């Protein structure tokens, strides 16, 4: 199908984008890579009056270092993330999860900012941003503000951004000395995760000093598996300790039942995938 008619603007600075969006009101939408938005427009699930294309704003694209953080521009494409040496060095979890997103064609256009702003609970990058304690930089009419990932995802397809605001960058603390892993379960090619688990583990001697575990598609937003993290803190770095911690992976979650999986199956997957993800992140043979 062909989308319904809309106006189109292609600003060249963030300031200009924010001004156009605030003047246009709630009917305007930001266009990033279009890989979620254009399918929605084609199915006429949305009919915005104006699209504000961020594709012409050079400052939004690319990865840089700032002290102990990586600053990833919102318009950095999935394909750019996969090739970026700073991401490979300081946030390999992000690259590993990005490699599982969709297919080559979609990764050539889809952006990290679009994935996070879209806030699809089945999206792979929201849970990764939680596990990495990422912080979003958001620009709006009143200037810039920072929102941690833990407060950014508010509900199904809903973020803390207000109309007129634009996600500018994702700031990711450099995680040196941490092991990380993304474990995604899907049944067919280019499919979304039935469940996914992002894990980051810091080991000290023979034990796990700290762990971060976040779940994809176990509720209307990505969720931290807090009970697992608490059980792992200070635990022995052993397959048994990980298995017993992973048993509480579904605590506090509310997975949906749909054509792809029942809530019960998702609950089962969350535990199994958490065990695998934490073991791989910690470099422990899960046997």
């Amino acid at each position, binding site marked *: 199908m062909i*989308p319904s008619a809309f106006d189109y603007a292609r600003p060249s600075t963030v300031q200009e984008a924010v001004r156009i969006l605030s003047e246009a009101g709630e009917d305007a939408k930001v266009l990033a890579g*279009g890989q979620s938005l254009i399918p929605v427009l*084609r199915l006429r699930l949305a009919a915005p009056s104006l*699209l504000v*294309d961020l594709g012409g704003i050079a400052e939004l694209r690319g990865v840089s270092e700032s002290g102990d953080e990586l600053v990833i521009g919102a318009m950095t494409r999935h394909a750019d993330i996969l090739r970026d040496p700073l991401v490979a060095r300081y946030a390999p979890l992000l690259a590993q999860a990005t490699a599982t997103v969709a297919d*080559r064609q979609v990764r050539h256009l889809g952006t990290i900012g679009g994935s996070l702003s879209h806030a699809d609970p089945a999206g792979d990058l929201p849970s990764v941003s939680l596990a990495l304690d990422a912080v979003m930089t958001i620009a709006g009419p009143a200037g810039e503000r920072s929102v941690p990932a833990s407060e950014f995802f508010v509900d199904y397809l809903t973020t803390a951004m207000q109309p007129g605001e634009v996600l500018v960058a994702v700031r990711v603390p450099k995680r040196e000395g941490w092991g990380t892993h993304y474990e995604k379960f899907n049944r067919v090619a280019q499919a979304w995760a039935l469940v996914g688990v992002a894990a980051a583990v810091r080991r000290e001697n023979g034990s796990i000093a700290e762990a971060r575990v976040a779940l994809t598609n176990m509720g209307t937003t990505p969720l931290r598996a807090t009970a697992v993290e608490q059980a792992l803190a200070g635990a022995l770095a052993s397959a048994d300790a990980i298995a017993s911690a992973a048993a509480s992976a579904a605590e506090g979650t509310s997975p949906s039942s749909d054509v792809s999986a029942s809530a019960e199956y998702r609950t089962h997957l969350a535990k199994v995938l958490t065990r695998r993800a934490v073991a791989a992140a910690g470099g422990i043979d899960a046997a």
Partner: protein
Amino acid sequence: MPRISLTVDGVRYDDDVEPRTLLVHHLRERLGKVGTVVGCDTSNCGACTVLMSGEAVKSCTVLAVQADGADITTVEGLAGPDGKLHPVQQAFHDRHALQCGFCTPGMIMAAVDLLAENPDPTDEEIREGLEGNLCRCTGYQNIVRAVRDAAAAMRSAAAPQESVPIGGGA
């Protein structure tokens, strides 16, 4: 209406387009490039794949206005000026990598894109690399064989020189 300028298969076109026009419709209906087809409404099938600035994209999931200034290669632009098929096209022909042929233009463009990044892929890498393209007929076996053959042909053609230009017909 915004005015856009595209280079498609080596020819430059300047046109006024409605913002909602999808690149694939612009290619087919305005520029007559009907080699690129539409197979779905959900951005899944990959039949509409073209190269945009050298990278494979689903042209049903790009607005024509987003492509302004880009260099587009469709399946119609792969063969050499003398009509000699691109090695990927030749290999699809030789290996019987199609039945109804509907997925073929997109499959070929996705394979060209994959081989530009990975000139010597394993079968596994070929399957992963083409995951954005669905075929309802072949069961993929002959497609994988064709891409493997094309990769070998392109590597040996490239051996004495630096690289094989995409769309130049080698």
